[in-house]
């Protein structure tokens, strides 16, 4: 990195922090919630992109990993009285009922536990390739959900948990998101990251260059699960309530949508599309309501939003078949080049 780039990055981070401070005090609860969701989806998208985009492992187990992270964090942060209230069907098991930890250690334990379970699942499942791996990981995610439903004394089963302290705020969500972005950047540009990419491009070539396929695949999968767990924990403590139905396959699909839209194998793309997908879903809500054009009132059709949203996705996929960013990353030089190119063009026209 050149010195100029470092300055620019630091300055933009500072500007962004100022924006966050402004948002924290001035934005209403609705806007704050959407911003938080943007950051959380960034974390989740990046963790899935590491596995699917950079290492080329087609894994669909994300909802399961998020469930582990969310449940662990929630159970560790729930106050004792709320726990007793929640578990009115069957009492919660002994030591868990009295353990209450602050948010950060709970989140960390949630992430580590998810990483451990990701490791246990990944070690055998990563022998599979392509579609088979997708089916296996999807199956494991469902197994996690079914276990949560049936382990009533630990997770409260289908009833879910309520009254989880709403600790997640802009500092937590964006702090974790920025940490994740920096971590991923460093990882991707390290020797491990290059090995991941080599595996993605050609496994046989990578192996003949001396890269241990198994070790690197499991490593990528475990790191991915860790951040999925962290993202799940943040989400649970943002919503204040979780239940197994939240972690169905559709949740994995949402995150897959983000990374496909942004570009499989691009950190910048994932960040941009996490924001676009989350904000567009809310902005398009006006389509569900009746629209007054002054001279004519169009009655609202509820559900129209999803139709338009899907159409927009189709357009993007048709015209940008590699996602918004492809495998490119944001780069100050390129941005200045583009800007100056436009100026040059404009000058030439004059």
């Amino acid at each position, binding site marked *: 990195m050149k010195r100029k780039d470092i300055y620019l990055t630091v300055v933009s981070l500072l500007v962004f922090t100022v924006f966050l401070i402004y948002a924290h005090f001035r934005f209403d609860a609705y806007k704050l919630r959407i911003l938080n969701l943007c950051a959380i989806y960034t974390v989740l998208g990046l963790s899935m992109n590491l596995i699917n985009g950079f290492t080329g492992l087609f894994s669909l187990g994300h909802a399961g990993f998020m469930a582990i992270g969310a449940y662990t964090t929630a159970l560790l942060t729930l106050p004792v009285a709320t726990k007793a209230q929640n578990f009115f069907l069957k009492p919660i098991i002994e030591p868990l009922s009295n353990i209450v930890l602050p948010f950060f250690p709970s989140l960390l334990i949630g992430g580590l536990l998810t990483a451990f379970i990701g490791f246990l699942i990944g070690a055998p499942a990563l022998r599979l390739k392509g579609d088979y791996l997708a089916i296996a990981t999807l199956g494991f995610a469902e197994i996690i959900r079914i276990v949560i439903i049936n382990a009533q004394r630990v997770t409260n089963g289908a*009833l879910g948990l309520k009254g989880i302290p709403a600790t997640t705020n802009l500092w937590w969500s964006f702090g974790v998101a920025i940490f994740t972005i920096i971590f991923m950047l460093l990882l991707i540009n390290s020797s491990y990251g290059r090995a991941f990419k080599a595996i993605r491009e050609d496994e046989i070539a990578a192996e003949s260059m001396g890269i241990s396929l198994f070790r690197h695949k499991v490593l990528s999968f475990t790191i991915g699960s860790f951040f999925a767990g962290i993202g799940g924990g943040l989400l649970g403590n943002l919503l*204040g*309530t979780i*239940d197994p139905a939240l972690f169905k396959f559709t949740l994995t699909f949402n995150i897959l949508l983000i990374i496909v839209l942004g570009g499989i194998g691009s950190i910048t793309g994932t960040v941009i599309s996490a924001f676009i997908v989350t904000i567009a879903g809310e902005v398009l809500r006006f389509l569900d*309501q009746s629209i007054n054009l002054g001279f004519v009132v169009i009655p609202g059709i509820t559900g129209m939003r999803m139709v338009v949203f899907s159409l927009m996705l189709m357009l993007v996929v048709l015209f940008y078949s590699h996602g918004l960013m492809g495998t490119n990353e944001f780069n100050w030089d390129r941005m200045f080049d583009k800007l100056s190119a436009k100026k040059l063009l404009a000058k030439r026209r004059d």
Partner: protein
Amino acid sequence: MKKISLILALIMIFTIFLTACAKPAEEEEIIKIGVFEPITGANAGGGALEVEGIKLANKLYPEALGKKVELVIVDNKSDKVEAASAVARLIEKEKVVAIIGSWGSSLSMAAGDIVNNAGVPTVGASCTNPLVTLSNDYYFRVCFIDPFQGTVMANYAYNKLGARKAAIVQEVSNDYSVGLAKFFVDAFTELTGDDNCIVATSNYNTGDLDFTAQLTNIQASNPDVIFAPGNFTESALLISQAKQLGIDVPMIGGDTWETPEFIDIGKDAVEGAVFSTFFATEQPITNESKVFLDEYRKEFDKEPAAVTALGYDAYILILDAIERAGSIEHDAVRDEIAKTKDFEGSAGFVTLDENGDAVKDAVIKVVKDGKFTYMDTVKPIQ
């Protein structure tokens, strides 16, 4: 490329234009009531039924305090994350006076903290899980809760059927089913005074088609009655498979059975199946029931579902509270809702207890000649 970006830019400008136009000029004159319901996604069917009732009520009673009442309906996609955002939007962006919703207790719970923090009174129509209103001063509901429904069916089994041994089949992935089963067990154990009165408990998952294993297990334990609350499709299949296996004990359940599909799938096998529900169309409980039934039949030319009546009740309850409060201040409306006593709703008289739960009659229905037929009304325990 240029063309595409031009078109995209035009679309964006157009959208901004539309959003700007969407806001009516004279906002002060309108009372906004927010509705968040699953309109798309897995629970869309239930959400649509409730919205039907709310819209009908809005058509019949379009004014409060001399101002027009406008419904702001937002979709929560049957998803917790969306439900929370939808409610936050209703409160912050639409500045609604009160909120109705949502079908599905878990979706309602996702909204719980938000309405409580913002202090916006919210009335649920058919969310029966006790946790929804628990330690939440701003959440109310017009339906009875699962503990009461479980007790009603336990009493029915004990008194009317003379049952002393019961078996439970529960849909373990469904919070409603597990909750109901638990309260049935508690009430039945207390009635019989016998800790071993539940002779078998079996679980199944949403979407299961074959229940032979569970039923064989139950058959061996020889119960007097089988309590099987759960989703209508699975329950109907369960009952017909039980009949095929030669299990001839009464099957009883909860309000989710009351759908046309239950009879379509179960056919002759579900004859005699008994369940508790919120109201009966052939037995109008109040004057409001008559108004509701007439208008509904006129408008839709079919019989209303119970949740439609509850959606209707949620709306008129809020409207009544606004009238009594004489203002649209959140806290004034909330206090009036909390004071609700013997309120005449279409699905019976509503009295709200200290948790904000409705204390009201339950109706017991039976499937007779391929129709849901009124059997009995059960008074709440005082």
